[in-house]
């Protein structure tokens, strides 16, 4: 179980997160929703170790993540799919996938097969440079790359950003599919409607604070959430 307890994060003197607490149980899809600048991405980056909290504690099972470097956190199986995809543009699709399996010493051929069955497009384009893929394909590659690392927890940052509606649907279905295979997912999304539909539980973040939590269904039907994030 991934547990965030009362973390404070600062950018210089600006306090970006205020006593944020949340937990993600094994096998769940948990989503963080909120407006621009609310601190969703900051929360993810703090979990993956890219930013250090000034206060509070993040634990994964018995490990204290607050004391670990990003690559050590990744080696525990907590893998981030960063915002804006960040594929390795001058490397081929295949090389990107191999990079995803960078920490693994075991046989990766099964996972490669699985990833290609989730995203057949990537199989067709495995020799192509990742920078030449379309936005949607790059997002698929970013997710596939993280899957190659055999994640226990996958931190997904805005997977629907800049994608056509049909592709968004596609990506969310795939996220559910991945979750069914036993990967715990923490999803940050601006597309609150889609995120809440697939999430078991959700947190609402406003200006650096968790202001609400509940099951996906509860929040979908909550008046305040409807008004602020679901457009009506």
């Amino acid at each position, binding site marked *: 179980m991934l547990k965030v307890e009362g973390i404070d994060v600062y950018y210089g003197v600006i306090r970006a997160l205020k006593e944020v607490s949340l937990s993600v149980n094994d096998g769940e899809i948990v989503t963080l929703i909120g407006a621009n600048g609310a601190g969703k991405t900051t929360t993810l980056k703090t979990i*993956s170790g*890219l930013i250090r909290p000034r206060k509070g504690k993040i634990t994964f099972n018995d490990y204290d993540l607050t004391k670990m*470097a*990003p*690559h050590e956190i*990744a*080696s525990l199986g907590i*893998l*981030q*799919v*960063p915002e*804006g995809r*960040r*594929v*390795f*543009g*001058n*490397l081929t699709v295949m*090389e990107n996938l*191999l*990079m*995803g399996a*960078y*920490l693994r010493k075991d046989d990766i051929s099964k996972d490669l097969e699985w990833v290609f069955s989730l995203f057949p497009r990537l199989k067709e384009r495995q020799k192509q440079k990742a*920078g030449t893929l379309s936005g949607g394909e790059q997002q698929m590659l970013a997710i596939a*790359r*993280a899957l190659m*690392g055999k994640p226990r927890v996958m931190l997904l940052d805005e997977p629907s950003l800049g994608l056509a509606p049909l592709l968004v649907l596609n990506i969310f279905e795939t996220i559910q599919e991945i979750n069914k295979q036993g990967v715990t997912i923490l999803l940050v999304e601006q597309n609150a409607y889609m995120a809440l539909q697939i999430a078991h539980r959700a947190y609402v973040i406003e200006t650096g604070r968790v202001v609400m939590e509940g099951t996906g269904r509860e929040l979908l039907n909550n008046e305040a959430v409807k008004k602020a994030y679901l457009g009506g």
Partner: protein
Amino acid sequence: MENLERFRYIFFIFGLVIIYLVNIILPYINPYYFQIIIFAGINIVLAVSLNVINGLCGQFSLGHAGFMAVGAYFSSFLTFYYKVPFPLALIAGGVLAGLIGLGVGVPTLRLRGDYLAIATLGMGEIIRVILFNLDIVGGARGFPGIPKYTSFFWVYLVVMFVLVSSYSLLKSPQGRAILSIREDEIASEAMGVNTTRFKIFAFIFGAFWAGVAGGLWAHYLQFLHPSSFTFMKSVEVLVMIVLGGLGSISGVAISAVFLTILPELLRYAKVLFNTTVDPRMVIYSLLLILTMLLRPQGLLGGYRRKVKEQ
């Protein structure tokens, strides 16, 4: 992949045989041409090693002349004072340069882009100033009397080693990790790559070979002076790798040879244009500008630096 592995060793052995044969013929060649061939080899070592830092790992280093100076001075010091065998002295020079690379890399590799360039430039200058004041290696008077050990054989043996080791590095999982740092440091970290360690590794790798190249250079010229290792020397190497195509090992090696020969060829320009003013460096610069305009990705096409969103 399997074939490639085998090919690499065949290439290596084949290369050794050629080096050996050419080494026999060479003394009968015009000494001027011979010198150009030696410098071309040394420049290949410098360019290919800087390419590992700048082209593969994407860390902008301007300190190559400094590492070269360390290797040149230390190996000469060993052969001159202690009669250390040449190969050992070369390796020792490389190792000391590598150690300095480690010492400089640990604090400076946190810096990115332009900041790292300035820091490494400063490091190179510090080394030069220290050498200026180091009396045991002649200080500002220079260091004469270095034994002439550098031969075609040694230079091109090192060239083979630097080519094969860089190429092996590039094709290894570690090499892919290094490339991923160049492509996107944050994503690379998210994949579990210890980016600091690999950046330092690339830095040491480059520094080591630059030190060896310095040793070769010193034992060819038989005289060293700190003023040979200004940052212009680093820029010279940088031009080679940018022209050859950042990240492309073969491109960088070819461009190193090309840029060694070109200024020599241009000596004929003076005769050709029948002038008293030497237009050599003007044409040289124009050619550089032209190549960059026509082939911004370098001769053999390396990677293109992408425009960063942030």
